[in-house]
């Protein structure tokens, strides 16, 4: 152990204790008849209003990892890291209409997961399985990354031990989380999100206005940052974009925005709301978090100006750039405020981790367990299975962080964003049209997944000393179609996920044209056009907790 920061630890522990109590009490909060149903345990009774949804979805989308990783990216690379702002601004206009359709159709048919919907829309358990597996695989490393965020804070407070024992505080924190998620389901993160988001808003607003005034104003901060980037050997960094990475900036923002609501955990928050107007209001109000994220990102520059240096992770022996914001806070703020800031990030890890594990557990239960292992499972058995699955998922994530290099989770998260995007045609485009043929979607998914993976594998990162999975920016000159390089020599970069999605759509369209010509059966659709417009109070809605 290093020097423990006692003031910080006391404040942190007090707030942590508060949310633990909230987590257990949540089981009784606006409870339905029984928690033994996925509608109740996994979707909080499908009755969250505008405020709860705002805190829940905000707490879900803007995770602890985002809060430590985005400033860390700015700290290392400059302007490129700011893509998080356009990403979360264009997100809401893009998903506004599709999410309403998704909510309505899910509410009419009692769908709990995106794979449930695909199953209903195409009548294909194979396509549903692909969507479910993609969701689970993409979510798992995301949960692990929440642990990275939590651990960055714990290590900065002095719990920077080496070996497996160095992870003990993390293990305890996650054990508590696992227990109250098991008991209270989605109600636990919904209630805790109030505390988390309030703390985050206070901390960021104070940091963004207080720190620059202390360090000589934004002018000085940006000039110092530019001086640092000018001195570095990497050509692509700087406080502005350059000729080669503008396309990467735009496609990464667009690709991330398209992908976000394909993640099962984001949809969980949406499906838990009680009506279409709740979702619409939230699409207007959620950008408040984007503003916050943009401000937070700028703290990466503040850290350069304040000469912060990332801590060395004693478990891996390498500097951990994700500790940069915690280190900055500790340098610049008194102990008690640092404690609040760390609690904000730490609790910020628990909310999304809980929702993600619930979403993954729902996928497992509905689309694998009930579909393949136990077709006659009762709702109570489904709920039991999901509770157990949420435990397995969380301890899987812990094992990942403890026994495998955390860098591996970061690589997997990178891959996760690319692969979840490959479900866009099946989950999002199908909300509007069944033009794409079932087998076209399957083929497109296979091609997009495979090619996306191959491209990611081939991207090196010399600065980090990695030969593979070095980032998500593909240089046009490296773009290869079975060895043919159509754009050889170009240094312009683009987001891998975007390229893979284009390939996915092209292949899906080609196969669709052929199969339509051959009149191959395109699955059966159990949804009706009116289902996509149903709203609260509509008699066609499936009663909650009844399937």
């Amino acid at each position, binding site marked *: 152990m290093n020097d423990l920061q006692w003031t910080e630890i006391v404040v942190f522990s007090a707030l942590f204790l508060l949310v633990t109590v909230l987590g257990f009490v949540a089981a009784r909060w606006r409870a339905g008849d029984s928690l033994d149903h996925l509608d109740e345990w996994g979707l909080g009774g499908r009755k969250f209003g505008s405020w709860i949804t705002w805190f829940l979805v905000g707490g879900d989308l803007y995770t602890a990892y985002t809060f430590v990783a985005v400033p860390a990216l700015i700290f290392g690379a400059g*302007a490129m890291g*700011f893509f998080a*702002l*356009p990403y979360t*601004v*264009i997100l*809401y*206009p*893009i998903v*506004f*209409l599709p999410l309403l359709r998704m909510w309505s159709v899910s509410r009419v048919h009692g769908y709990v997961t995106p794979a449930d919907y695909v199953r209903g829309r195409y009548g294909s358990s194979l396509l549903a399985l692909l969507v479910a597996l993609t969701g689970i695989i993409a979510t798992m490393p995301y949960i692990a990354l929440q642990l990275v965020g939590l651990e960055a804070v714990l290590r900065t407070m002095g719990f920077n031990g080496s070996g497996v024992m160095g992870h003990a505080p993390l293990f305890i924190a996650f054990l508590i989380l696992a227990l109250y998620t098991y008991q209270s389901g989605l109600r636990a993160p919904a209630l805790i999100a109030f505390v988390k988001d309030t703390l985050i808003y206070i901390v960021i607003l104070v940091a963004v206005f207080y720190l620059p005034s202390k360090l000589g*104003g*934004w*002018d*000085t*901060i*940006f000039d110092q940052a530019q001086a640092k980037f000018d001195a570095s050997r990497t050509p692509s960094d700087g*406080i*502005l*974009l350059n000729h080669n990475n*503008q396309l990467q*900036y*735009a496609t990464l*923002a667009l690709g991330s925005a398209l992908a976000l609501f394909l993640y099962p955990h984001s949809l969980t928050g949406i499906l838990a709301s009680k*009506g*279409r*107007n709740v979702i*619409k*209001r939230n*699409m*207007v109000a959620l*950008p408040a978090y*984007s*503003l916050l994220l*943009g401000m937070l990102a*700028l703290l990466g520059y503040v850290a350069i100006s304040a000469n912060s240096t990332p801590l060395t992770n004693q478990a891996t022996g390498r500097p951990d750039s994700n500790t940069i914001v915690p280190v900055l806070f500790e340098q610049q703020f008194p102990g008690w405020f640092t404690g609040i800031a760390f609690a904000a990030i730490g609790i910020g890890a628990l909310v999304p981790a809980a929702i993600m594990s619930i979403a993954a557990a729902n996928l497992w239960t509905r689309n694998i367990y009930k579909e393949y292992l136990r077709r006659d499972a009762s709702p109570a058995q489904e709920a039991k299975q999901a509770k157990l699955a949420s435990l397995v998922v969380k301890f899987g994530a812990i094992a990942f962080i403890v026994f495998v290099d955390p860098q591996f989770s970061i690589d997997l998260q990178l891959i996760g964003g690319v692969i979840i995007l490959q479900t866009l045609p099946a989950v999002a485009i199908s909300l*509007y*049209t*069944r*033009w794409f043929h079932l087998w076209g979607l399957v083929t497109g998914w296979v091609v997009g997944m495979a090619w996306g993976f191959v491209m990611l594998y081939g991207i090196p990162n010399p600065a980090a000393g990695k030969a593979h999975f070095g980032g998500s920016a593909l240089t046009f000159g490296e773009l290869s179609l079975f060895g043919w390089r159509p754009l050889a020599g170009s240094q312009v970069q683009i987001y891998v996920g975007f390229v893979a999605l284009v390939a996915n759509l092209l292949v899906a369209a080609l196969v669709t044209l052929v199969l*339509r010509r051959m*009149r191959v*059966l*395109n*699955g*059966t*659709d159990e949804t*009706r*056009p*009116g*289902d*996509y*417009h*149903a*709203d*609260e*109070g*509509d*008699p*066609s809605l499936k009663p909650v907790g009844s399937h």
Partner: protein
Amino acid sequence: MSTGSPPPRAGHSGNGLRWNAWNLLLLVPLLMLATALYNEDRPRLFGLPFFYWCQFLFVPLGVLCVGLVYLRTRDEPVRTDRPDRLSVDDLDSAGAAGRRQDGSDAR
């Protein structure tokens, strides 16, 4: 929104898509993807380079666009509070009939 008498199950025909010109406003924030618009250092505002404060301005712009669409569409789906009012889907079905080939070979 008031919960009046529940509307009848809407739209058993047509492709279920509803056109509303207000929805086009949702495309405006996508301007943000044109990085060339704002990839400049100066003028600075409160010390922030143009690149940063310009993108911050897109946040209220996005809220404005989405907010307008919300205000203009929040009464959807059509509630048949007045008995003689024809629902949008009934009006749609004639025009939509020509577009119905999609899905018809699925059954």
